[in-house]
Protein backbone atom coordinates (compact mmCIF):
# COMPACT_ATOMS: atom_id res chain seq x y z
CA UNK A 1 0.00 0.00 0.00
CA UNK A 2 1.23 3.41 -0.84
CA UNK A 3 3.77 4.62 1.66
CA UNK A 4 3.40 1.70 4.02
CA UNK A 5 7.15 1.50 4.32
CA UNK A 6 7.44 5.26 4.56
CA UNK A 7 4.92 5.16 7.36
CA UNK A 8 7.10 2.58 9.05
CA UNK A 9 10.09 4.88 9.08
CA UNK A 10 11.84 4.99 12.44
CA UNK A 11 9.82 7.56 14.29
CA UNK A 12 12.73 9.54 15.56
CA UNK A 13 13.65 7.40 18.56
CA UNK A 14 11.84 9.30 21.30
CA UNK A 15 13.62 8.98 24.58
CA UNK A 16 11.83 8.02 27.75
CA UNK A 17 12.29 11.50 29.18
CA UNK A 18 10.39 13.29 26.46
CA UNK A 19 6.85 12.58 27.46
CA UNK A 20 7.52 13.65 31.06
CA UNK A 21 8.69 16.94 29.58
CA UNK A 22 5.21 17.50 28.15
CA UNK A 23 3.60 16.59 31.44
CA UNK A 24 5.87 18.88 33.46
CA UNK A 25 4.96 21.86 31.31
CA UNK A 26 1.68 23.55 32.26
CA UNK A 27 1.15 24.70 28.67
CA UNK A 28 1.25 21.16 27.25
CA UNK A 29 -0.41 19.33 30.12
CA UNK A 30 -4.02 18.21 29.97
CA UNK A 31 -6.28 17.98 33.01
CA UNK A 32 -5.85 14.58 34.69
CA UNK A 33 -9.29 13.30 33.66
CA UNK A 34 -8.53 14.08 30.00
CA UNK A 35 -5.20 12.31 30.22
CA UNK A 36 -6.68 9.20 31.81
CA UNK A 37 -9.56 9.13 29.35
CA UNK A 38 -7.23 9.31 26.34
CA UNK A 39 -4.90 6.72 27.84
CA UNK A 40 -7.72 4.40 28.85
CA UNK A 41 -9.66 4.58 25.60
CA UNK A 42 -6.64 4.26 23.32
CA UNK A 43 -5.10 1.39 25.28
CA UNK A 44 -8.37 -0.55 25.46
CA UNK A 45 -8.75 -0.04 21.71
CA UNK A 46 -5.18 -1.27 21.24
CA UNK A 47 -5.77 -4.30 23.47
CA UNK A 48 -9.02 -5.32 21.80
CA UNK A 49 -8.02 -4.84 18.17
CA UNK A 50 -4.29 -5.67 18.17
CA UNK A 51 -3.28 -7.56 21.28
CA UNK A 52 -6.18 -9.99 21.54
CA UNK A 53 -5.85 -11.44 18.02
CA UNK A 54 -2.13 -12.00 18.65
CA UNK A 55 -2.74 -13.76 21.96
CA UNK A 56 -5.56 -15.79 20.41
CA UNK A 57 -3.19 -17.26 17.81
CA UNK A 58 -0.95 -18.78 20.47
CA UNK A 59 -3.73 -19.87 22.80
CA UNK A 60 -5.59 -21.64 19.99
CA UNK A 61 -2.34 -23.20 18.74
CA UNK A 62 -1.63 -24.88 22.09
CA UNK A 63 -5.23 -25.71 22.93
CA UNK A 64 -4.70 -29.40 22.24
CA UNK A 65 -1.24 -29.55 23.74
CA UNK A 66 2.35 -29.79 22.57
CA UNK A 67 2.00 -33.10 20.78
CA UNK A 68 -0.74 -31.89 18.45
CA UNK A 69 1.20 -28.67 17.94
CA UNK A 70 4.40 -30.42 16.91
CA UNK A 71 2.57 -33.00 14.83
CA UNK A 72 0.95 -30.20 12.81
CA UNK A 73 4.35 -28.71 12.04
CA UNK A 74 6.26 -31.85 11.06
CA UNK A 75 3.53 -33.36 8.94
CA UNK A 76 4.78 -33.67 5.28
CA UNK A 77 2.36 -31.14 3.76
CA UNK A 78 3.32 -28.59 6.40
CA UNK A 79 7.00 -29.19 5.78
CA UNK A 80 6.60 -28.75 2.04
CA UNK A 81 4.63 -25.54 2.67
CA UNK A 82 7.45 -24.26 4.88
CA UNK A 83 9.96 -25.19 2.20
CA UNK A 84 8.03 -23.39 -0.55
CA UNK A 85 7.62 -20.31 1.62
CA UNK A 86 11.38 -20.23 2.21
CA UNK A 87 12.07 -20.65 -1.51
CA UNK A 88 9.73 -17.79 -2.42
CA UNK A 89 11.37 -15.51 0.15
CA UNK A 90 14.91 -16.57 -0.78
CA UNK A 91 14.32 -15.60 -4.40
CA UNK A 92 12.16 -12.50 -4.04
CA UNK A 93 14.07 -10.76 -1.23
CA UNK A 94 17.49 -10.69 -3.00
CA UNK A 95 15.86 -9.61 -6.29
CA UNK A 96 14.11 -6.71 -4.62
CA UNK A 97 17.21 -5.89 -2.58
CA UNK A 98 19.29 -5.42 -5.74
CA UNK A 99 16.48 -3.44 -7.32
CA UNK A 100 16.04 -1.27 -4.23
CA UNK A 101 19.73 -0.37 -4.14
CA UNK A 102 19.84 0.39 -7.88
CA UNK A 103 16.68 2.49 -7.72
CA UNK A 104 17.82 4.41 -4.65
CA UNK A 105 21.26 5.06 -6.17
CA UNK A 106 19.85 6.47 -9.42
CA UNK A 107 17.13 8.49 -7.69
CA UNK A 108 19.15 10.01 -4.87
CA UNK A 109 22.55 10.54 -6.47
CA UNK A 110 21.46 12.01 -9.80
CA UNK A 111 18.95 14.52 -11.12
CA UNK A 112 16.79 13.58 -14.06
CA UNK A 113 13.40 14.32 -15.56
CA UNK A 114 10.49 12.21 -14.33
CA UNK A 115 12.01 11.31 -10.96
CA UNK A 116 8.78 11.85 -9.06
CA UNK A 117 6.84 9.77 -11.55
CA UNK A 118 9.38 6.99 -11.11
CA UNK A 119 8.98 7.08 -7.32
CA UNK A 120 5.19 6.90 -7.73
CA UNK A 121 5.57 3.89 -10.04
CA UNK A 122 7.81 2.14 -7.50
CA UNK A 123 5.02 2.62 -4.93
CA UNK A 124 2.36 1.13 -7.21
CA UNK A 125 2.45 -2.44 -5.84
CA UNK A 126 1.52 -1.07 -2.40
CA UNK A 127 -1.71 0.36 -3.75
CA UNK A 128 -2.79 -2.64 -5.81
CA UNK A 129 -5.05 -5.18 -4.12
CA UNK A 130 -3.19 -8.48 -3.59
CA UNK A 131 -5.90 -10.26 -5.56
CA UNK A 132 -5.32 -7.97 -8.55
CA UNK A 133 -1.56 -8.57 -8.17
CA UNK A 134 -2.16 -12.28 -8.63
CA UNK A 135 -4.60 -11.71 -11.48
CA UNK A 136 -2.14 -9.73 -13.60
CA UNK A 137 0.24 -12.68 -13.78
CA UNK A 138 -2.61 -15.01 -14.68
CA UNK A 139 -3.40 -12.65 -17.56
CA UNK A 140 0.21 -12.68 -18.74
CA UNK A 141 1.25 -16.29 -18.14
CA UNK A 142 -2.04 -18.18 -17.64
CA UNK A 143 -3.48 -20.69 -20.13
CA UNK A 144 -5.47 -17.92 -21.85
CA UNK A 145 -2.85 -15.23 -21.25
CA UNK A 146 -0.39 -13.47 -23.55
CA UNK A 147 2.30 -16.13 -23.27
CA UNK A 148 -0.02 -19.01 -22.35
CA UNK A 149 0.02 -20.85 -25.72
CA UNK A 150 3.80 -20.46 -26.11
CA UNK A 151 4.41 -21.68 -22.55
CA UNK A 152 2.20 -24.74 -22.95
CA UNK A 153 3.89 -25.58 -26.28
CA UNK A 154 7.23 -25.56 -24.51
CA UNK A 155 5.88 -27.36 -21.47
CA UNK A 156 6.70 -24.55 -19.04
CA UNK A 157 4.31 -24.06 -16.16
CA UNK A 158 4.25 -20.70 -14.40
CA UNK A 159 0.69 -20.24 -13.17
CA UNK A 160 -0.47 -22.90 -10.66
CA UNK A 161 3.22 -23.70 -10.18
CA UNK A 162 6.19 -22.44 -8.17
CA UNK A 163 7.37 -19.73 -10.65
CA UNK A 164 3.97 -18.01 -10.44
CA UNK A 165 4.14 -17.99 -6.65
CA UNK A 166 7.61 -16.46 -6.77
CA UNK A 167 6.50 -13.82 -9.30
CA UNK A 168 3.47 -12.81 -7.23
CA UNK A 169 5.70 -12.59 -4.14
CA UNK A 170 8.23 -10.43 -5.98
CA UNK A 171 5.41 -8.09 -7.01
CA UNK A 172 3.90 -7.55 -3.56
CA UNK A 173 7.31 -7.06 -1.90
CA UNK A 174 8.65 -4.91 -4.74
CA UNK A 175 8.79 -1.45 -3.06
CA UNK A 176 9.98 -2.34 0.46
CA UNK A 177 13.77 -1.95 0.16
CA UNK A 178 13.61 0.99 -2.26
CA UNK A 179 11.08 2.75 -0.04
CA UNK A 180 13.37 2.47 3.01
CA UNK A 181 16.54 3.49 1.16
CA UNK A 182 15.34 6.45 -0.89
CA UNK A 183 14.52 8.85 1.99
CA UNK A 184 17.62 7.75 3.88
CA UNK A 185 20.05 8.26 0.99
CA UNK A 186 18.27 11.48 0.01
CA UNK A 187 18.87 12.86 3.51
CA UNK A 188 22.55 11.94 3.42
CA UNK A 189 23.21 13.74 0.16
CA UNK A 190 26.11 12.86 -2.10
CA UNK A 191 29.02 14.87 -0.70
CA UNK A 192 30.76 11.87 0.85
CA UNK A 193 30.49 9.80 -2.32
CA UNK A 194 31.75 12.68 -4.44
CA UNK A 195 34.73 13.14 -2.14
CA UNK A 196 35.54 9.44 -2.42
CA UNK A 197 35.38 9.50 -6.21
CA UNK A 198 37.48 12.67 -6.44
CA UNK A 199 40.06 10.95 -4.23
CA UNK A 200 40.22 8.14 -6.76
CA UNK A 201 37.81 5.49 -5.47
CA UNK A 202 36.03 3.36 -8.05
CA UNK A 203 32.25 3.21 -8.20
CA UNK A 204 31.93 -0.11 -6.32
CA UNK A 205 34.52 0.90 -3.73
CA UNK A 206 32.57 4.10 -3.11
CA UNK A 207 29.39 2.14 -2.69
CA UNK A 208 30.86 -0.52 -0.36
CA UNK A 209 32.96 1.76 1.81
CA UNK A 210 31.02 5.03 1.83
CA UNK A 211 27.35 4.55 0.97
CA UNK A 212 26.67 1.13 2.46
CA UNK A 213 27.97 1.84 5.99
CA UNK A 214 25.74 4.94 6.07
CA UNK A 215 22.56 3.14 5.10
CA UNK A 216 23.10 -0.35 6.52
CA UNK A 217 20.43 -0.13 9.24
CA UNK A 218 17.79 1.20 6.90
CA UNK A 219 18.76 -1.44 4.38
CA UNK A 220 18.49 -4.20 6.99
CA UNK A 221 15.09 -2.95 8.06
CA UNK A 222 13.88 -2.87 4.45
CA UNK A 223 15.06 -6.45 3.96
CA UNK A 224 13.35 -7.62 7.16
CA UNK A 225 10.04 -6.03 6.15
CA UNK A 226 10.37 -7.40 2.64
CA UNK A 227 10.99 -10.86 4.06
CA UNK A 228 8.04 -10.70 6.45
CA UNK A 229 5.69 -9.79 3.64
CA UNK A 230 7.23 -12.39 1.31
CA UNK A 231 6.64 -15.18 3.81
CA UNK A 232 3.19 -13.98 4.82
CA UNK A 233 1.59 -13.01 1.52
CA UNK A 234 -1.79 -14.62 1.04
CA UNK A 235 -4.08 -12.99 -1.53
CA UNK A 236 -1.72 -12.69 -4.50
CA UNK A 237 -0.19 -16.11 -3.95
CA UNK A 238 -3.62 -17.67 -3.49
CA UNK A 239 -4.68 -16.54 -6.99
CA UNK A 240 -1.67 -18.04 -8.79
CA UNK A 241 -1.09 -21.11 -6.64
CA UNK A 242 -3.79 -23.54 -7.67
CA UNK A 243 -3.69 -24.92 -4.10
CA UNK A 244 -2.03 -28.24 -4.90
CA UNK A 245 -1.24 -29.83 -1.57
CA UNK A 246 2.40 -30.61 -0.99
CA UNK A 247 3.34 -28.83 -4.23
CA UNK A 248 2.09 -25.25 -4.50
CA UNK A 249 0.99 -24.42 -0.98
CA UNK A 250 2.86 -21.79 0.99
CA UNK A 251 2.46 -21.55 4.76
CA UNK A 252 -0.40 -19.00 4.67
CA UNK A 253 -2.24 -21.14 2.09
CA UNK A 254 -1.66 -24.22 4.21
CA UNK A 255 -3.21 -22.36 7.16
CA UNK A 256 -6.26 -21.61 5.02
CA UNK A 257 -6.69 -25.23 3.93
CA UNK A 258 -6.38 -26.58 7.48
CA UNK A 259 -8.80 -23.96 8.75
CA UNK A 260 -11.38 -24.73 6.08
CA UNK A 261 -11.09 -28.42 6.99
CA UNK A 262 -11.90 -27.53 10.61
CA UNK A 263 -8.45 -28.63 11.78
CA UNK A 264 -8.29 -25.53 13.93
CA UNK A 265 -5.47 -26.57 16.25
CA UNK A 266 -3.24 -27.47 13.29
CA UNK A 267 -4.18 -24.27 11.42
CA UNK A 268 -3.28 -22.15 14.44
CA UNK A 269 -0.08 -24.13 15.01
CA UNK A 270 1.20 -23.20 11.54
CA UNK A 271 -0.20 -19.69 12.01
CA UNK A 272 1.72 -19.35 15.28
CA UNK A 273 5.01 -19.89 13.42
CA UNK A 274 4.07 -17.02 11.11
CA UNK A 275 3.03 -14.91 14.10
CA UNK A 276 6.39 -15.61 15.70
CA UNK A 277 8.06 -14.43 12.51
CA UNK A 278 6.03 -11.21 12.76
CA UNK A 279 7.14 -10.71 16.37
CA UNK A 280 10.77 -11.25 15.39
CA UNK A 281 10.32 -8.70 12.61
CA UNK A 282 8.99 -6.15 15.09
CA UNK A 283 11.81 -6.89 17.53
CA UNK A 284 14.41 -6.37 14.81
CA UNK A 285 12.69 -3.11 13.93
CA UNK A 286 13.04 -1.83 17.49
CA UNK A 287 16.67 -2.96 17.59
CA UNK A 288 17.50 -1.33 14.22
CA UNK A 289 15.88 1.93 15.31
CA UNK A 290 17.96 1.89 18.45
CA UNK A 291 21.17 1.33 16.50
CA UNK A 292 20.25 3.95 13.90
CA UNK A 293 19.38 6.37 16.72
CA UNK A 294 22.72 5.71 18.45
CA UNK A 295 24.62 6.15 15.18
CA UNK A 296 22.75 9.41 14.54
CA UNK A 297 23.57 10.67 18.04
CA UNK A 298 27.29 9.91 17.54
CA UNK A 299 27.36 11.96 14.34
CA UNK A 300 25.80 14.92 16.08
Amino acid at each position, binding site marked *: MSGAAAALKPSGGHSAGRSTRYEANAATRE*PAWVKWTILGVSLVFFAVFLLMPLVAVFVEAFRKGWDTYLAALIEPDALSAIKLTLIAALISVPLNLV*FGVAAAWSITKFDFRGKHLLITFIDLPFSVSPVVAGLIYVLVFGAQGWFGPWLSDHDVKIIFAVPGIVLATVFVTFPFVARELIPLMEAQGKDEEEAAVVLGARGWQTFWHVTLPNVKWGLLYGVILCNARAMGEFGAVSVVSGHIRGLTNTMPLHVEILYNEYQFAAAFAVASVLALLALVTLAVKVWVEKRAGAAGAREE
Partner: protein
Amino acid sequence: MASRSNSVLPGFGLSLGYTLVYLSLIVLIPLAAVFVKSSSLGFEQFWNVVTAPTVVASYKLSFGASLLAASINAVFGLMLAWALVRYSFPGKRLVDALVDLPFALPTAVAGIALTALYAPNGWVGQHLEPLGIKVAFTPLGVLVALIFIGLPFVVRTVQPILEDLDTEYEEAAASLGANRWQAFRHVVFPTLMPALLTGFAMAFARAVGEYGSVIFIAGNIPMVSEITPLMIITKLEQYDYAGATAIAVVMLVFSFTLLLAINGLQAWTAKRTGRER
Protein backbone atom coordinates in the same frame (compact mmCIF):
# COMPACT_ATOMS: atom_id res chain seq x y z
CA MET B 1 17.31 21.00 -13.83
CA ALA B 2 20.84 20.20 -12.83
CA SER B 3 22.02 17.77 -15.44
CA ARG B 4 23.49 14.45 -14.52
CA SER B 5 26.61 15.20 -16.57
CA ASN B 6 27.64 17.51 -13.72
CA SER B 7 27.83 14.59 -11.35
CA VAL B 8 31.17 12.92 -10.81
CA LEU B 9 29.47 9.81 -9.45
CA PRO B 10 29.42 6.74 -11.67
CA GLY B 11 26.67 4.25 -12.36
CA PHE B 12 23.82 6.48 -13.52
CA GLY B 13 23.12 4.58 -16.72
CA LEU B 14 23.45 1.17 -15.12
CA SER B 15 21.34 1.85 -12.02
CA LEU B 16 18.58 3.76 -13.81
CA GLY B 17 18.54 1.32 -16.70
CA TYR B 18 18.23 -1.65 -14.37
CA THR B 19 15.53 0.12 -12.34
CA LEU B 20 13.45 0.88 -15.43
CA VAL B 21 13.78 -2.60 -16.96
CA TYR B 22 12.94 -4.39 -13.70
CA LEU B 23 10.05 -2.02 -12.96
CA SER B 24 8.62 -2.58 -16.44
CA LEU B 25 8.96 -6.35 -16.34
CA ILE B 26 7.55 -6.91 -12.86
CA VAL B 27 5.03 -4.11 -12.47
CA LEU B 28 4.19 -1.97 -15.49
CA ILE B 29 3.78 -4.54 -18.26
CA PRO B 30 1.74 -7.02 -16.15
CA LEU B 31 -0.47 -4.17 -14.93
CA ALA B 32 -0.98 -3.05 -18.52
CA ALA B 33 -2.25 -6.58 -19.23
CA VAL B 34 -5.34 -5.80 -17.14
CA PHE B 35 -6.26 -2.82 -19.26
CA VAL B 36 -5.49 -4.60 -22.55
CA LYS B 37 -7.54 -7.63 -21.54
CA SER B 38 -10.49 -5.52 -20.41
CA SER B 39 -10.56 -3.70 -23.73
CA SER B 40 -11.34 -7.03 -25.37
CA LEU B 41 -14.72 -6.76 -23.70
CA GLY B 42 -17.03 -4.31 -25.44
CA PHE B 43 -18.08 -1.31 -23.39
CA GLU B 44 -21.57 -2.66 -22.91
CA GLN B 45 -20.30 -6.02 -21.70
CA PHE B 46 -17.80 -4.32 -19.41
CA TRP B 47 -20.55 -2.16 -17.97
CA ASN B 48 -22.82 -5.16 -17.41
CA VAL B 49 -20.09 -6.97 -15.48
CA VAL B 50 -19.13 -4.08 -13.24
CA THR B 51 -22.73 -3.07 -12.47
CA ALA B 52 -24.14 -6.55 -11.84
CA PRO B 53 -26.18 -6.54 -8.60
CA THR B 54 -23.81 -8.82 -6.65
CA VAL B 55 -20.84 -6.72 -7.73
CA VAL B 56 -22.55 -3.45 -6.79
CA ALA B 57 -23.43 -4.96 -3.41
CA SER B 58 -19.74 -5.81 -2.97
CA TYR B 59 -18.71 -2.20 -3.74
CA LYS B 60 -21.13 -0.95 -1.14
CA LEU B 61 -19.68 -3.28 1.47
CA SER B 62 -16.02 -2.82 0.52
CA PHE B 63 -16.13 0.96 0.22
CA GLY B 64 -18.59 1.51 3.04
CA ALA B 65 -16.81 -0.70 5.57
CA SER B 66 -13.40 0.66 4.51
CA LEU B 67 -14.54 4.26 4.91
CA LEU B 68 -16.03 3.52 8.31
CA ALA B 69 -12.96 1.56 9.46
CA ALA B 70 -10.62 4.35 8.32
CA SER B 71 -12.75 6.92 10.18
CA ILE B 72 -12.71 4.86 13.38
CA ASN B 73 -8.95 4.43 13.00
CA ALA B 74 -8.50 8.18 12.46
CA VAL B 75 -10.16 8.89 15.82
CA PHE B 76 -8.59 6.12 17.90
CA GLY B 77 -5.28 6.23 16.02
CA LEU B 78 -4.93 9.91 16.84
CA MET B 79 -5.63 9.17 20.51
CA LEU B 80 -3.11 6.33 20.53
CA ALA B 81 -0.46 8.46 18.82
CA TRP B 82 -1.15 11.20 21.38
CA ALA B 83 -0.80 8.75 24.27
CA LEU B 84 2.46 7.38 22.86
CA VAL B 85 4.04 10.82 22.38
CA ARG B 86 2.67 12.85 25.26
CA TYR B 87 2.23 10.44 28.18
CA SER B 88 4.45 7.97 29.94
CA PHE B 89 2.88 4.71 31.08
CA PRO B 90 4.14 1.23 31.90
CA GLY B 91 4.59 -0.96 28.83
CA LYS B 92 4.76 2.00 26.50
CA ARG B 93 7.68 0.64 24.48
CA LEU B 94 5.86 -2.64 23.97
CA VAL B 95 2.69 -0.89 22.84
CA ASP B 96 4.73 1.31 20.51
CA ALA B 97 6.43 -1.72 18.95
CA LEU B 98 3.20 -3.74 18.63
CA VAL B 99 1.36 -0.97 16.79
CA ASP B 100 3.10 -2.22 13.64
CA LEU B 101 1.78 -5.77 14.16
CA PRO B 102 -0.77 -5.54 11.32
CA PHE B 103 2.06 -4.66 8.91
CA ALA B 104 4.09 -7.70 9.98
CA LEU B 105 1.43 -10.32 10.72
CA PRO B 106 0.37 -12.32 7.65
CA THR B 107 -3.19 -11.40 6.74
CA ALA B 108 -4.42 -15.01 6.80
CA VAL B 109 -3.20 -15.36 10.39
CA ALA B 110 -5.00 -12.18 11.38
CA GLY B 111 -8.09 -13.46 9.59
CA ILE B 112 -8.38 -16.77 11.43
CA ALA B 113 -7.46 -15.18 14.78
CA LEU B 114 -10.19 -12.54 14.46
CA THR B 115 -12.68 -15.18 13.37
CA ALA B 116 -11.84 -17.33 16.39
CA LEU B 117 -12.35 -14.32 18.68
CA TYR B 118 -15.63 -13.11 17.23
CA ALA B 119 -17.28 -16.42 16.32
CA PRO B 120 -20.40 -17.12 18.42
CA ASN B 121 -18.35 -19.36 20.74
CA GLY B 122 -15.23 -17.16 20.71
CA TRP B 123 -13.77 -15.07 23.54
CA VAL B 124 -15.53 -11.92 22.43
CA GLY B 125 -18.34 -13.44 20.39
CA GLN B 126 -19.84 -15.38 23.30
CA HIS B 127 -20.34 -12.14 25.23
CA LEU B 128 -21.85 -10.31 22.26
CA GLU B 129 -24.18 -13.14 21.25
CA PRO B 130 -26.60 -12.70 24.23
CA LEU B 131 -26.78 -8.97 23.38
CA GLY B 132 -27.97 -9.91 19.91
CA ILE B 133 -24.77 -8.64 18.27
CA LYS B 134 -23.33 -10.93 15.62
CA VAL B 135 -19.87 -9.99 14.36
CA ALA B 136 -18.33 -12.99 12.62
CA PHE B 137 -19.88 -13.86 9.24
CA THR B 138 -21.63 -10.48 8.96
CA PRO B 139 -20.58 -7.07 7.53
CA LEU B 140 -19.63 -6.12 11.09
CA GLY B 141 -16.91 -8.78 10.96
CA VAL B 142 -15.55 -7.18 7.78
CA LEU B 143 -15.40 -3.88 9.67
CA VAL B 144 -13.46 -5.44 12.57
CA ALA B 145 -10.85 -6.93 10.21
CA LEU B 146 -10.46 -3.63 8.36
CA ILE B 147 -9.96 -1.74 11.64
CA PHE B 148 -7.20 -4.20 12.53
CA ILE B 149 -5.22 -3.74 9.31
CA GLY B 150 -5.70 0.05 9.07
CA LEU B 151 -4.73 1.22 12.56
CA PRO B 152 -0.93 1.50 12.11
CA PHE B 153 -1.29 3.72 9.04
CA VAL B 154 -2.91 6.47 11.11
CA VAL B 155 -0.67 6.09 14.18
CA ARG B 156 2.55 5.99 12.15
CA THR B 157 1.76 9.05 10.04
CA VAL B 158 0.55 11.20 12.95
CA GLN B 159 3.14 10.15 15.55
CA PRO B 160 6.29 11.66 13.94
CA ILE B 161 4.53 14.96 13.23
CA LEU B 162 3.38 15.14 16.84
CA GLU B 163 6.90 14.36 18.05
CA ASP B 164 8.41 17.11 15.93
CA LEU B 165 5.83 19.66 17.00
CA ASP B 166 7.56 22.35 19.00
CA THR B 167 5.93 23.00 22.37
CA GLU B 168 6.44 26.75 22.02
CA TYR B 169 3.28 27.12 19.92
CA GLU B 170 1.20 25.62 22.70
CA GLU B 171 3.09 27.74 25.24
CA ALA B 172 2.32 30.84 23.19
CA ALA B 173 -1.33 29.83 22.98
CA ALA B 174 -1.45 29.25 26.74
CA SER B 175 0.23 32.55 27.54
CA LEU B 176 -2.31 34.32 25.31
CA GLY B 177 -5.05 32.84 27.45
CA ALA B 178 -6.16 29.83 25.42
CA ASN B 179 -7.33 26.87 27.42
CA ARG B 180 -6.05 23.38 26.64
CA TRP B 181 -8.92 22.51 24.30
CA GLN B 182 -8.58 25.78 22.39
CA ALA B 183 -4.83 25.25 22.04
CA PHE B 184 -5.46 21.76 20.66
CA ARG B 185 -8.31 22.81 18.41
CA HIS B 186 -6.66 25.88 16.91
CA VAL B 187 -2.92 25.24 17.22
CA VAL B 188 -2.10 21.53 17.37
CA PHE B 189 -4.89 20.03 15.30
CA PRO B 190 -4.36 22.18 12.16
CA THR B 191 -0.72 21.04 12.10
CA LEU B 192 -1.71 17.38 12.46
CA MET B 193 -4.57 17.60 9.99
CA PRO B 194 -2.65 16.83 6.75
CA ALA B 195 -0.91 13.85 8.36
CA LEU B 196 -4.16 12.59 9.84
CA LEU B 197 -5.83 12.80 6.43
CA THR B 198 -2.87 11.00 4.84
CA GLY B 199 -3.12 8.20 7.39
CA PHE B 200 -6.87 8.04 6.87
CA ALA B 201 -6.46 7.80 3.08
CA MET B 202 -3.77 5.11 3.40
CA ALA B 203 -5.92 3.05 5.77
CA PHE B 204 -8.88 3.47 3.41
CA ALA B 205 -6.89 2.47 0.32
CA ARG B 206 -5.44 -0.57 2.06
CA ALA B 207 -8.83 -1.63 3.39
CA VAL B 208 -10.55 -1.56 0.00
CA GLY B 209 -8.02 -3.98 -1.49
CA GLU B 210 -7.65 -6.18 1.59
CA TYR B 211 -8.40 -9.85 1.14
CA GLY B 212 -6.69 -12.27 3.54
CA SER B 213 -7.81 -10.90 6.87
CA VAL B 214 -11.38 -10.36 5.68
CA ILE B 215 -12.48 -13.53 3.91
CA PHE B 216 -12.36 -15.75 6.98
CA ILE B 217 -14.47 -13.51 9.19
CA ALA B 218 -16.80 -12.24 6.45
CA GLY B 219 -18.63 -15.51 5.88
CA ASN B 220 -18.92 -14.48 2.19
CA ILE B 221 -22.70 -14.51 1.91
CA PRO B 222 -23.74 -13.26 -1.58
CA MET B 223 -25.23 -9.74 -1.54
CA VAL B 224 -24.49 -9.45 2.19
CA SER B 225 -20.87 -10.00 3.09
CA GLU B 226 -18.94 -10.46 -0.15
CA ILE B 227 -16.10 -7.96 -0.64
CA THR B 228 -14.99 -6.75 -4.08
CA PRO B 229 -11.64 -8.63 -4.16
CA LEU B 230 -13.62 -11.81 -3.50
CA MET B 231 -15.72 -11.11 -6.61
CA ILE B 232 -12.50 -11.27 -8.65
CA ILE B 233 -11.59 -14.59 -7.06
CA THR B 234 -15.09 -15.97 -7.70
CA LYS B 235 -14.93 -14.99 -11.38
CA LEU B 236 -11.47 -16.56 -11.69
CA GLU B 237 -12.71 -19.80 -10.18
CA GLN B 238 -15.41 -19.88 -12.88
CA TYR B 239 -12.69 -19.25 -15.52
CA ASP B 240 -14.39 -15.93 -16.32
CA TYR B 241 -11.12 -14.06 -16.92
CA ALA B 242 -12.75 -11.15 -18.75
CA GLY B 243 -15.20 -10.61 -15.88
CA ALA B 244 -12.45 -10.77 -13.26
CA THR B 245 -10.41 -8.29 -15.28
CA ALA B 246 -13.30 -5.85 -15.59
CA ILE B 247 -13.71 -5.69 -11.81
CA ALA B 248 -9.92 -5.41 -11.44
CA VAL B 249 -9.98 -2.35 -13.71
CA VAL B 250 -12.54 -0.68 -11.45
CA MET B 251 -10.36 -1.40 -8.40
CA LEU B 252 -7.16 -0.23 -10.12
CA VAL B 253 -8.69 3.05 -11.27
CA PHE B 254 -9.85 3.64 -7.71
CA SER B 255 -6.41 2.77 -6.23
CA PHE B 256 -4.57 5.03 -8.67
CA THR B 257 -6.88 7.93 -7.90
CA LEU B 258 -6.35 7.44 -4.19
CA LEU B 259 -2.58 7.10 -4.70
CA LEU B 260 -2.53 10.50 -6.39
CA ALA B 261 -4.60 11.97 -3.57
CA ILE B 262 -2.20 10.51 -0.98
CA ASN B 263 0.81 11.94 -2.82
CA GLY B 264 -0.91 15.33 -2.81
CA LEU B 265 -1.67 15.03 0.91
CA GLN B 266 1.93 14.12 1.69
CA ALA B 267 3.17 17.15 -0.22
CA TRP B 268 0.71 19.23 1.81
CA THR B 269 1.98 17.67 5.08
CA ALA B 270 5.56 18.48 4.08
CA LYS B 271 4.61 22.06 3.27
CA ARG B 272 2.57 22.55 6.43
CA THR B 273 5.22 21.18 8.77
CA GLY B 274 8.40 21.99 6.87
CA ARG B 275 9.26 18.30 7.12
CA GLU B 276 10.87 16.41 4.28
CA ARG B 277 9.05 13.21 3.66
